[in-house]
């Protein structure tokens, strides 16, 4: 046991000497591994980041919510068909609410984009969400200040607003939004509530942090003509297990309300987050595929490069191998020496790649939050060690079985 450990340590030291003695060559060799490991770490970091963002986003919106809409959100094939659908209006909503038994909450939603101002601070194109007081029950919102607008405020179309955390941070850098009068599209609103930071970048328009919530009546009064706009009906199931049943009920009620006969297609769509989830999965899939492809390719190129360089190295050091054998190096000692050499070079390349990936992910983080995982570190180390061993095995074996006399005669 002692001698094996000793031999391993000595092989490692000998390999390190050889690497130091051939710096330039070693550095070039590391390049392929460096790229491979950088990509693999960056990729796993990015995927984890997307995933995290998605999870928090999903839980902010609530995974057990149905969105009855004129449009199917995640299918774009039949766009022209959907365009000709009748709009969904408030009467549909009232009838739906009347008849639906299963939902925990039902809320009508209509959107508008407006500029929001407070003093000199302004945000263009804010996603304005108009609904009623039940809306908050179709979400998992939590509040950092104040509350959601009440039923009375909603029914009487008061000029009250609940603002997302990003909106609050921009308009009220000192965090004193509550009860302030803001201007939305030139109209005065009183802030009654500020949301905690909820969602995440991945939700795009759905990100509650960038939205302002006002009663739907106020939207109709100021920003949208009630007799044109189509609304979305948000339906929250009593619990996730009842989602499917709630959906079936909703479909039946909607068909009845819309007066569809049995052979007519739905003229509405019932959307779910699942659609978003599968879209995200697709994105992640593409990143993974591209990432693995690049990783595989650069590791392969790196491995071939290392193998070549190790072969050259064995050739160059034929005489040295002869000398080592003459003074008592066993085959396995020589084998170990060259294997150690190639895997140490790869490991060094891998570690540099890891560091580069971590720095890069800091930069990428500014556009797209990443999440560095410990498994990325382990992946980097294992991948580069294995590459080194695979690339080193043939040259090391060649070196080990050199005939000492021939090797010594080599010039």
């Amino acid at each position, binding site marked *: 046991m002692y*001698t094996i450990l000793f031999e391993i340590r000595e092989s490692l030291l000998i390999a390190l*000497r050889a690497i130091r003695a051939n710096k330039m060559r070693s550095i070039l060799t590391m390049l392929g591994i460096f790229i491979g490991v950088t990509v693999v770490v960056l990729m796993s970091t990015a995927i984890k980041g997307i995933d995290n963002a998605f999870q928090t986003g999903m839980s902010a919106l609530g995974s057990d919510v149905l969105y009855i809409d004129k449009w199917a959100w995640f299918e774009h094939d039949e766009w022209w068909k959907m365009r000709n659908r009748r709009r969904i209006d408030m009467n549909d909503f009232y009838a739906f609410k009347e008849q639906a038994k299963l939902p925990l909450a039902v809320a009508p939603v209509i959107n508008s984009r407006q500029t929001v101002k407070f003093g000199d601070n302004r945000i263009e194109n804010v996603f304005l969400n108009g609904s009623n007081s039940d809306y908050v029950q179709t979400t998992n919102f939590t509040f950092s200040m104040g509350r959601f607008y009440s039923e009375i405020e909603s029914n009487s179309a008061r000029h009250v607003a609940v603002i997302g955390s990003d909106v609050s941070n921009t308009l009220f850098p000192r965090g004193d939004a509550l009860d302030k009068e803001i201007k939305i599209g030139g109209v005065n609103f009183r802030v009654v509530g500020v949301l905690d930071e909820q969602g995440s970048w991945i939700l795009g328009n759905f990100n509650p942090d960038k939205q302002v919530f006002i009663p739907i009546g106020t939207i109709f009064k100021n920003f949208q003509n009630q007799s044109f706009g189509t609304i979305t009906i948000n339906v929250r199931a009593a619990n996730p297990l009842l989602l499917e049943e709630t959906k079936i009920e909703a479909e039946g009620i909607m068909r009845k309300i819309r007066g569809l006969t049995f052979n007519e297609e739905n003229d509405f769509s019932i959307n779910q987050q699942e659609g978003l989830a599968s879209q995200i999965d697709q994105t992640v899939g593409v990143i993974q595929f591209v990432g693995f492809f690049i990783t595989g390719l650069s590791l392969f190129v790196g491995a071939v490069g290392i193998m070549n360089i190790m072969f050259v190295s064995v050739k160059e050091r034929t005489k040295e191998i*002869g*000398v080592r054998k003459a*003074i008592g190096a*066993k*085959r396995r000692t020589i084998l170990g020496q060259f294997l150690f050499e190639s895997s140490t070079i790869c490991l060094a390349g891998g570690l540099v790649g890891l560091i580069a990936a971590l720095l890069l992910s800091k930069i990428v983080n500014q556009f797209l939050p990443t999440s560095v995982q410990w498994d990325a570190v382990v992946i980097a180390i294992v991948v580069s060690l294995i590459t080194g061993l695979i690339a080193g095995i043939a040259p090391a074996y060649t070196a080990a079985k050199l005939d000492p006399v021939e090797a010594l005669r080599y010039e």
Partner: protein
Amino acid sequence: MNIINIEHIAKVYQVGFEEVHALRDVSIRIDKNEYVAIMGPSGSGKSTLMNVLGCLDTPTSGKYDFNNQNVSEMNDNQLAKIRNKEIGFVFQTFNLLPRSDALHNVELPLIYAGVPTAERKERAKQALIDVGLENRIHHKPNELSGGQRQRVAIARALVTNPSIILADEPTGNLDSKTGEEIMLLFNEIHCKGNTIILVTHEEYIAEHAARIVRLKDGLVESDEKVLNRYIPKLNSANVN
């Protein structure tokens, strides 16, 4: 007692369709603490014989007993062990590792022998002191003269306390004065009780030994004691 006993050793190389008989039928016995020179014209098989004696090469036929062990039947690992522990090689071209300093070069056989680091360094340093290189321990081969390089090689050969020293034309790449200094060193080593086998072309080098074996065409032509052996004077050594 014989350290080396070879009987009817032959070594045949196959070059294309042609067989080259480097050694045809060589039988030699060498005792402990002998000092033998092997001579002969170029191509007579001297280096081949040294490689066989040093367990670097296996003969095509014949029997080789080293220290009463039958070497002919050993496997690669066992031969490596014999080379490491029992044999010290000195080459004409020194064959040092170019990028390692003197100390590491001398350490190397001890690394393969599994000697712990501290003891190893100590022994390697002592071996370098013994060959007169106490001031060159951390020099690399290209920072040393030819004579000094050969001294490092001799230190490397001696550091494991081998049973025999095999030197193939150790003075071949040195001028005559430096060669003489190396021969003085061999004389000292022999006087300490070591067994030395030395290949040379030069009659005056061979006369440092106590016995000369002459090869010709892969056969022993003559094998006789040196009558007026040349013992170098100790004070002629001036190393640095």
